């Protein structure tokens, strides 16, 4: 470890954000830019009989209006699904639907006008003759016989079934169990609501046939590939530049290839004029791929002493009206593989039915399948502790995978790399003063107060992922990462990463890695990301992969630079490379034991470019690149403890204390890591207590605005205490594990466990999220408050 990794370096990207100089897509204004607005279906399920565009087309300031068939005739392809599971049925999805709408917000027509206000006005003038059809909703209910079909060719609205585990061992565990806990859970529909609505701009240069697309994406290179290979095949990949500049939050919802990324450049090329589309928040609610939405039926087998022996779970996952880009992955591969949790037990079986409904498509949302797994495990384990009369931490500890058994092969495919769950919980109990909290709780309960304490722990697979493994599991690409380093003749450095920062702070943390490995200053490294013309290749940021995969790629590139510098220094000083040492403090190359005899970093950089005296066979210049394909995922873990108090009269829940201990291995920047954890916890608390994407029986999104969809606010939290343990990952040389999603994976069960604990005297076994005041108040009334 050198001089920068592990330090809370202040973020280098912040000066532009705090001064209003963020470069978001909506801020792009080009000369002669036209504005695109999209007509959204008001119906969840309807045939389009006809569309009359004549009034809209005739409006002053309207350039043109297009419908689905125009784009199909113009050569666009269907939206691709790039992670598939065996035998999944993939419904057709066109960027603009030609014949039938399948969810509220489905794209029906696109107006391009001189001004965004005019474009919005023109939408009002488009007359669509819809034949409204009955809608189907509900992850499980949609599979019943007689339900309307979202796509005629997909029977019972079932897109796929997928299972994993040791069924035999699972059955045996239940046959031999002393105690079986049954639990039915709903992991509700979530809406990511990154603060920046999606946007897309495009500029076509007819003379050179170059296209530039600006889009709010977490992975611009994948969008470039998707556009040129599938959706806009008339564009050549090498003449297509995709830029995702500053992106205002993603949380998974900006991973996917969206219809507007096809519509806007297609129109720009068609009218030969730059175009821009910026979503309204209402459009975000209706069109950003949403998250979670499982119905889970599960049971846990235990011995009477609390030893867990088996888990059986059936999941129904609502995929919405179409399969979004990587949707089949989320409730299957990335979810059931984590059913072992923190625990060592043999008998795991999980199976998922992926279903279609007349709702907005569902795909990855922060945690992406892992919160659905951790909530299931940590809820049912908690219920087991209550039923067996054990302390919930005691029961967990009894079943932890012991520290000395890592790397640990679970029965559900993964090889956990490292961890120390006992030490993590030791720290949690110590910081929180768990025993003291329990004593205070007992005393509060005597006073008639509804105080509850909840614990949650989880392990997740991050750092996606080894290319061959993700390929075998259904991904069309490889999840390596690319890192490039260009040392300039003055010794300043530009680093290029295929990872993408949309809040994570890569411009700082990636600079720390490069500066650390080269022994130079962070201020001397500029990090470039999010532009396919500047960064050679990239797989982007999701699955908590940037440090473990993108960081490692840059680290490996830096090692190549070091090697060249040492070879060059040996030549210039006429000594053997074996006699030289690289100084991590200042980047110079010195003769061992003779610090005076050295070549400074900048001196060597200039020598590499002057080329006046290079070793035989060495090319001038000083830049390199590395692709890094990880050998394994990384497995961060975490432990949360929450104290809540429920107001008997109002059902309102107050979080009084929140302590979180994470293990994300070695840490590049503790300040940034803590920020990720705090933000993740807030989103998880949002899921536990407030957020719910609600559709009525007609498929109308009832929670279609920030007024109706309740998100956590500043006054919903106490100061959260956050700490770490570090078990370095053996999966990469930096020893890092992912951290971006951990908070949102562990917090929902911890919070729900706390509330159930507070209401235990009412005989409450389980409450489905979100735990709204209304729900809690009704429960108290019904159960004899």
């Amino acid at each position, binding site marked *: 470890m050198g001089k920068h990794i592990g330090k809370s370096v202040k973020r280098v990207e912040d000066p532009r954000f705090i001064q209003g100089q963020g470069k978001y897509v*909506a801020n792009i204004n080009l000369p002669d830019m036209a504005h695109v607005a999209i007509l959204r279906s008001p119906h969840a399920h309807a045939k389009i009989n006809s569309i009359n565009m004549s009034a809209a087309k005739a409006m002053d300031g309207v350039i043109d209006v297009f419908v689905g068939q125009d784009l199909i005739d113009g050569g666009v392809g269907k939206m691709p699904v790039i992670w598939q599971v065996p035998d999944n049925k993939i419904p057709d999805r066109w960027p603009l639907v030609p014949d039938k709408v399948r969810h509220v917000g489905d794209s029906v027509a696109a107006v391009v006008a001189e001004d965004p206000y005019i474009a919005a006005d023109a939408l009002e003038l488009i007359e669509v003759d819809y034949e409204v059809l009955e809608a189907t909703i509900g992850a499980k209910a949609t599979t019943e016989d007689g339900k309307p079909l979202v796509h005629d060719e997909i029977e019972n609205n079932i897109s796929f079934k997928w299972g994993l585990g040791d069924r035999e061992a699972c059955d045996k565990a239940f046959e031999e169990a002393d105690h079986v806990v049954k639990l039915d859970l709903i992991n509700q529909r979530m809406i990511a609501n990154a*603060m920046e609505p999606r946007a897309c701009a495009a500029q076509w240069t007819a003379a050179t046939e170059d296209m530039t697309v600006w889009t709010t994406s977490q992975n611009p290179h994948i969008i470039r590939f998707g556009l040129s290979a599938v959706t806009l095949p008339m564009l050549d990949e090498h003449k297509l530049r995709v830029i995702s500049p500053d992106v205002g939050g993603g949380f998974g919802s900006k991973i996917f290839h969206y219809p507007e990324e096809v519509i806007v450049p297609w129109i720009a090329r068609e009218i030969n004029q730059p175009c821009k589309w910026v979503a309204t*928040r209402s459009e975000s609610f209706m069109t950003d791929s949403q998250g979670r939405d499982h119905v889970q039926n599960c049971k846990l087998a235990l011995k009477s002493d609390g030893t867990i022996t088996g888990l059986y779970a059936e999941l129904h996952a609502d995929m919405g009206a179409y399969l979004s880009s990587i949707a089949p992955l989320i409730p299957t591969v990335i979810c059931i593989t984590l059913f072992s949790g923190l625990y060592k037990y043999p008998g795991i079986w999980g199976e998922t039915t992926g279903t279609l409904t007349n709702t907005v498509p569902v795909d990855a949302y922060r945690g992406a399948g892992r919160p659905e797994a951790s909530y299931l495990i940590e809820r049912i384990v908690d219920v087991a502790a209550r039923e067996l009369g054990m302390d919930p931490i005691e029961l967990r500890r009894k079943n932890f995978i012991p520290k000395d058994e890592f790397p640990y092969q679970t029965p559900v495919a993964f090889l956990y790399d490292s961890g120390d769950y006992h030490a993590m919980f030791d720290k949690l109990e110590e910081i929180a003063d768990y025993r003291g909290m329990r004593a205070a709780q007992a005393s509060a309960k005597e006073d008639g107060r509804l105080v509850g304490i909840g614990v949650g722990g989880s392990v997740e697979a991050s750092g996606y992922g080894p290319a061959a493994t993700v390929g075998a599991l259904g991904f069309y690409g490889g999840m390596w990462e690319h890192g490039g380093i260009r040392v300039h003749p003055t010794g300043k450095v530009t680093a290029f990463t295929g990872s993408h920062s949309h809040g994570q702070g890569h411009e700082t943390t990636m600079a720390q890695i490069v500066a650390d490995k080269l022994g130079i200053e962070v201020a001397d490294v500029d990090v470039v990301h999010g532009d396919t013309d500047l960064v050679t290749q990239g797989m982007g940021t999701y699955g908590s992969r940037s440090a473990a995969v993108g960081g490692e790629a840059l680290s490996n590139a830096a090692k190549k630079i070091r090697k060249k510098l040492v070879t060059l220094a040996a030549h210039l000083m006429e000594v053997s490379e074996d006699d030289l040492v690289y100084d991590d403090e200042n980047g110079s190359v010195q003769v061992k034991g003779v610090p005076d005899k050295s070549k400074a970093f900048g001196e060597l950089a200039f020598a590499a470019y002057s080329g006046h005296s290079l070793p035989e066979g060495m090319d001038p210049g000083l830049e390199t690149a590395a692709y890094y394909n990880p050998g394994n995922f990384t497995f961060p873990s975490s432990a949360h403890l929450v104290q809540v108090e429920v107001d008997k009269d109002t059902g309102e829940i107050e979080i009084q204390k929140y302590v979180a201990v994470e293990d994300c291995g070695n840490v590049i920047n503790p300040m940034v890591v803590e920020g990720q954890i705090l*933000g993740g916890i807030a989103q998880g608390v949002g899921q536990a207590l407030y957020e719910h994407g609600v559709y009525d029986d007609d498929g109308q999104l009832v929670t279609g605005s920030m007024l109706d969809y309740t998100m956590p606010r*500043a006054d919903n*939290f106490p100061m959260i205490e956050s700490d770490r343990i570090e078990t370095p990952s053996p999966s990469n040389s930096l020893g890092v594990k992912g951290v971006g999603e951990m908070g949102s994976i562990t917090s929902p069960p911890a919070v729900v466990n706390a509330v159930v604990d507070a209401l235990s005297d009412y005989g409450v076994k389980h409450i489905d999220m979100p735990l709204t005041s209304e729900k809690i108040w009704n429960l108290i009334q019904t159960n004899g408050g």
Partner: protein
Amino acid sequence: MTHTISMTVNGNTCTGDVEARTLLVDFLRDHLNLTGTNIGCDTSQCGSCTIMMDGSAVKSCTALAVQANGSEIITIEGLANNGELHHLQQAFWDEHGLQCGYCTPGMIMASVGLLDQNPNPSESEIRHCLEGNFCRCTGYQNIVKAVQSASQAMEGGA
């Protein structure tokens, strides 16, 4: 039909011709090219577009440009003084009070409004004041710390 309006924005007199329905935030962003003020919703919930108008923190998506005729506006671009960051800008940076940066201009301007009225707010007063501003990245904790830190720095400097 358009209306000619004039206002002082970040110390400069700005005039423009707008429709009656033009929102103040669109006037700032599209007419004056002050794109630091962001739009995060269409229902006045998120606070990303908060600016100072005649000394009060205002959501600029919820005012018409014509309503701001003759007013004095400060946006995030006008907060630093001759290149020296405002205490709140500095504190958001120091305390890691931002991640993606999108809510940040509105969050800082709402905090300017708070500290103008209440230079030494308690933690709960800060949290209460910022109820009208969503942040999806930070969990608010470091934003609250930033406002506390700026409050102390401003007290110290006064």
